[in-house]
């Protein structure tokens, strides 16, 4: 079985930051592997270690800068990676679900995996929709917010748990090929070992343009335009206690005694 995992480098934001236009100014941004994708990679690598997957391919959309992050997927055990980038994507403020779907579809159609794993959401733009959208476009089955996957795939079926609201899980059987959006907590993502990191440098990381994938530039134009970004108006009417830690702790202590919840 072949597994394709979509991974993304997401921007992390410092506590204090400034917005320029519809972007957070670069100097306040860091980069990290999307939290949910980390769990998706781990799940794929575990399937490989269990002898169920023959190959794990990581796919990302992103500029050259993000290669370091994508190599984390290779360092953790993915066999090879594909990075899609194009001048046409350089100017785009916001890649909407439709645009991401078009790009990823072209890669999946080339790779024809049995299973696609994506994160439930990405920590920056949090669309929470690309995995399911991709499945539909491919004619694959799907499952959203999966926090457990049985590793036997009896009769070409993925037995999963979907994490619903309020501490309830749904047990679902999904026919392969399928795309599953992976929720945190499904496993314990590993740290890349030094050996893994060294090996990752030698693994294949192919770069593909839209033209090479046969994707028309117009297909990746987002139908959703980002028109404004701002810090949410603080609705806070919190009393902020000032002073040293001893002073603020004393104030909190007084509150707790006043409320009669602690002596």
């Amino acid at each position: 079985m072949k597994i394709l995992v979509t991974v993304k480098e997401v921007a992390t934001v410092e506590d204090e930051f400034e917005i320029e236009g519809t972007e957070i100014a670069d100097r306040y941004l860091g980069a990290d592997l999307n939290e949910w994708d980390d769990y998706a990679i781990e799940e794929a690598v575990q399937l490989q270690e269990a002898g169920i997957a023959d190959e794990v391919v990581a796919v990302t959309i992103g500029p050259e800068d993000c290669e370091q992050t994508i190599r984390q997927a290779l360092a953790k055990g993915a066999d090879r990676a594909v990075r899609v980038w194009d001048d046409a994507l350089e100017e785009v403020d916001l890649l909407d679900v439709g645009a991401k779907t078009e790009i990823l579809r072209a890669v999946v159609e080339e790779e024809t995996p049995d299973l696609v794993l994506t994160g439930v959401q990405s920590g920056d733009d949090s669309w929470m929709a690309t995995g399911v959208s991709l499945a539909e476009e491919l004619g694959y089955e799907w499952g959203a917010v999966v926090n457990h996957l049985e590793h036997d795939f009896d009769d070409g079926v993925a037995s999963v748990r979907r994490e619903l609201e309020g501490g309830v899980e749904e047990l679902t059987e999904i026919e392969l090929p399928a795309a599953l959006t992976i929720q945190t907590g499904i496993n314990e993502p590993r740290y890349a070992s030094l050996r893994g990191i060294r090996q990752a440098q030698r693994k294949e990381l192919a770069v593909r343009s839209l033209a090479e994938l046969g994707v028309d530039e117009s297909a990746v134009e987002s139908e959703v335009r980002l028109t404004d970004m701002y810090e949410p108006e603080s609705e806070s009417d919190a009393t902020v206690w000032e002073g040293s830690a001893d002073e603020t702790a004393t104030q909190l202590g007084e509150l707790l005694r006043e409320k009669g919840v602690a002596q």
Partner: protein
Amino acid sequence: MTNVLAVADHRRGDLRDVSYEIITAGRQLADETGGDLHLAVVSGTVDDFAEKLDREGVDVIHTVDHGEEFNHDIYAQATIQLYDDVAPQYVVTPNSVNGLDYAPAVAARLDLPIVTDAVALDADGDTLTATREMYGGKVETTTELDGPAVISIREGEWPAAEGTGDATIGAFAAEIDESEVGSTVTGFEEVGGGDVDISEADLLVSVGRGIEEEENLELIRDLADALGATVSSSRPIVDNGWLPKNRQVGQSGKVVTPDVYIAIGISGAVQHVAGMKGSDTIVAINTDPNAPIMDIADYAIVDDLFDVVPALIEEFQ
């Protein structure tokens, strides 16, 4: 195309609260586009659901009587056929776990753009403006799109519709192609039982990713001992296996309503807030003065938890 089609959410025999919120959001959009609000309810005891959903502002309710529980293949097929029939400008679904499991497929199959997790909407002519959050609530954005679209709305952002309506209720004869149904829900399981019921506690000391290491949890346990409080947490602590699932507060964990909730190193992501916003008094200890938790906190200490928590323990020893 001016109508709006909204789809209700239910589970194990009960409509979920968001089903009434979606009426309010849908009505708002229908007023802005000048059309009717059509509501769909798919699977389960649809006639009973339709009666409950007939609140002020709903023009038409379509029932699709097919199966007991949510099945995304059936929801997707039914919604797409309703779209062809009603020809709405907008399809509105909850951004619930089930919404996330079919709305993107509906958008993809109908070749429509989708905006997810909207917290505010404004339709003007052919243009829809949706307000969304990015970076875990650190910034808000406005996004625009033209023409018909699928929209999923965040739960708890629109008030629930009230009153009694006089909607036209009718069965919609969706033709479900069973050969296209490739997923089967086989059951449900409650998780997170165990030794402690955090929803019963008067005082919760709740710890988040700011604690950094499992060893540091000892500090929070010491605090709980000193205060006579119960320990709860945000999701990453449970995902890491540092605390059992029954300690998780939030959308996919427990809803808690203590007298005092102390959020220690917790940012206040929407899924966390969903579980604790009903607390009587909320205190945040966080190094980030702009963390979203500050919006709902009554009291805040903007400082390092590793300084404040030991001082607080000392207070009570």
